């Protein structure tokens, strides 16, 4: 798994690639925590459209990040780009994460803060 961070004027974008499982989820958690620490009022967008596998440790990281976004950092729901990749969307739906994240199908919409996908 690789995480690339892109800082912009109004957003911090984390682009995640590869498998998010028990081996790699701790690194994603660290990347998200560091991004939160330097947001300075900007929105955080997680781009998962190049994630090839998402297991329960990765889902837990997303739940924790979503919770931190709202409770610790006073932000609106975490914006997550999921494309239409089944290895990512299926596990998110199975555990009900779709109800706590703002899901987008394209990065531009997420960066603009458009209305999330239904």
């Amino acid at each position, binding site marked *: *798994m*690789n995480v690339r961070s892109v800082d912009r004027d109004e957003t911090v974008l984390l682009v995640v*690639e*590869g*498998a998010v*499982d*028990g*081996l*790699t989820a*701790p690194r994603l958690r660290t990347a998200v925590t560091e991004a939160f620490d330097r947001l300075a009022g900007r929105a955080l967008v997680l781009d998962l459209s*190049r994630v*090839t*596998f998402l*297991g*329960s*440790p990765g*889902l*837990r990281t997303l*739940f924790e990040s979503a919770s931190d976004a709202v409770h610790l950092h006073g932000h609106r729901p975490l914006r997550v780009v999921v494309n239409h990749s*089944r*290895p990512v969307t*299926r*596990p998110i739906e*199975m*555990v009900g994460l779709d109800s706590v994240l703002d899901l987008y199908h394209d990065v531009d919409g997420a960066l603009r803060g458009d209305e999330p996908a239904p």
Partner: protein
Amino acid sequence: MPPPPSDQEEHRVRRARPADDGDPVGPELAVELNAGWVAPSIARERVEGWLRAHRWPPAQVDELVLAVSEAVSNSVEHGYRVPPDALEPQETVDVRMRLTVAPDGFRQVEFVVSDRGHWREPHRAATSRGHGMLIMRSCTDELVVDGSPAGTTVVLRSRPTPPPR
């Protein structure tokens, strides 16, 4: 698309033990994995290759790979309580897979994932283990979890699937 290379990937390749595992395209395959955090990814690769060799429907391959990965992850995290940075745990997780064909030609695969760790009943759904159980259940026709002080065996059965054309 293959995941980007990393030091873990290299580690994983070295640790695979194909010589012990038998025929990767036979109706049965047994894989013994070192119970480190890299085990789920090796299990995913082996299960995916075996199912593809048997021309299993791709959408079901993804779901079964996910289910087996969760079972192995469960053994590493909760059976053996392997810390995230452990490199060389001595314990192992066994993954056995078997394909059966019914008289009507429908096929089914069964995965047995077993460890010799200590099973504890998950008490909340909103934990990774609760999620793991939910995922395993969603991806299979039948899920059996047999936990005892001597270890845990998880049996995952696929939905019956029409023969390949």
